[in-house]
């Protein structure tokens, strides 16, 4: 995972969430307070604005800077969670490296664990973690098995999609939707949706790259 890829991924994520504006926005209107799209768009835009300043830095520093910037930009519930993800990833990359698929899986898992502990939440609570935890698990497993790069990415996309869909039938026990009891059944969690969109965008970017291994 090099800096160039991170910055390209930021572009891809930004484009992807803008494409899904209406969907994400209406999900948070239905079972939240309607600002989730605005929040992640604000975060995404500020990362794009950092590109020049980040260009020459090492991946761990880039991830750390992104995390700190998001922490002071997004706000809401998603802000500290997404920021914690990047800050923990940065730490993992710094300590354990971020070159091999296994190292990246470790870093991604560290990020997801940071969200779990910051949000005191786990799988099945109708949050972004219903996407992130399964994806981290699949990532770790397939990287361990030395899976083929393209099929790993396809599997992650599929896992993200399944995780996102799984929130539809859940009752929420964390976040704003936790106040609504059975009224949230039938609605996908907005943070799960945006996570799935972002993961998909990054996977698609990786799949599209020519010299895959060198970039990532």
């Amino acid at each position: 995972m090099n800096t160039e890829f991170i910055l390209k991924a930021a572009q891809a994520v930004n484009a992807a969430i803008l494409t899904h504006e209406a969907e994400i926005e209406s999900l948070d209107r239905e079972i939240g307070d309607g600002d989730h799209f605005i929040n992640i768009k604000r975060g995404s835009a500020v990362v794009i604005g950092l590109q020049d300043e980040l260009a020459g830095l090492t991946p761990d520093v880039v991830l750390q800077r992104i995390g700190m910037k998001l922490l002071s930009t997004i706000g809401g519930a998603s802000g500290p969670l997404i920021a914690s993800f990047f800050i923990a990833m940065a730490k993992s990359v710094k300590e354990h490296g971020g070159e091999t698929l296994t190292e990246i899986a470790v870093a991604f898992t560290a990020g997801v664990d940071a969200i779990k502990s910051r949000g005191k939440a786990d799988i099945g609570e109708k949050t972004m973690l219903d996407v992130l935890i399964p994806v981290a698990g699949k990532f770790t497993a397939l990287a361990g098995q030395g899976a083929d790069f393209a099929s790993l990415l396809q599997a992650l996309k599929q896992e993200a999609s399944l995780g996102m869909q799984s929130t539809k039938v859940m009752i929420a026990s964390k976040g704003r939707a936790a106040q609504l009891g059975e009224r949230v059944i039938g609605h996908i969690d907005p943070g799960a949706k945006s996570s799935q969109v972002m993961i998909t965008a990054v996977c698609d970017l990786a799949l599209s790259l020519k010299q895959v291994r060198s970039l990532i």
Partner: protein
Amino acid sequence: MKKFINHVDDFLAESLSGFAAAHQDLVTLHFDPNFVCRAQKSVQKVALISGGGSGHEPLHTGYIGHGMLDAACPGHVFTSPTPDQMLAAAEAVESGKGILFIVKNYAGDVMNFEMAAEMLPYEHATVLISDDVAVVNSTYTTGRRGVAGTLIVEKVVGSFAETGADLATCKVLGDKVNSRTASMGVALTSCTVPAAGRPTFDINETELEMGVGIHGEPGRRREAMRSVDEIVADLVAAIWHDLQPVAGSKILLLINGFGATPLMELYVIYNAAAKLLQQHGLIISRSLVGNYITALDMAGASITVCLLDDEILQYWDAPVHTPALRWGK
């Protein structure tokens, strides 16, 4: 959406600028990170800092001043502020006796204040406000929301802090007020978040949203519109069920408008609620009726009951001098 607005991106900054200009005798505004603090820094007292998404004005910035907050951190509309705001505010107002954060119980507020607290170089404590009885507490949830009771905690603890009380005692009093306070709201219309540009929920001419949150979050249930006496009976029943007050208890009754409900209607609600509570043997010792914790342009209101004791009453009555609440000074 029709609003008094230039560009949606400048809305918060312009509103804060107007607020600070109109009340420059009382408050000072800082941008980047955004926070508002007292114009005169107080000396040797626990500093009270609150904050949360904007859109609930006068909460919290309107409650900065003698007898209430030292600083407030306004987030974007309905979005929790970020930790750097709390850190900068703390830096500006800490006066040697530590920081008390007053935080409404929402995942976002809790986590952002928590991260600030972890980085804070001062002694600190947090009072979590969770007065909304709309949603029945269960082991699955992260607890109840903080709504209009926040005002009462900020006032009572704020006045207590002025006496030089220490951080731990301030927190104890804050937790006590919170535990003796229960609220529930009802909406007749949705609010419209400027950046979203459309109402958060759809509701028709024959419906109301019972137990709505102050961000336009859905409540207990969507119900048929009915008379104010019936609506108030439901709200009071939920509050009663939670507080289980004994007859003869003295209470503070707060009827809070959500932003678009005329004062005439709020007084009709007060009339209905006061009668009911008195019939059930409670003594209404203090009252407050108005737009104190709003949800932008939502039509609706909440009822809050706080079970008074001598200590709470004493600090409720103590002088307060803020942009939105003022007496005794």
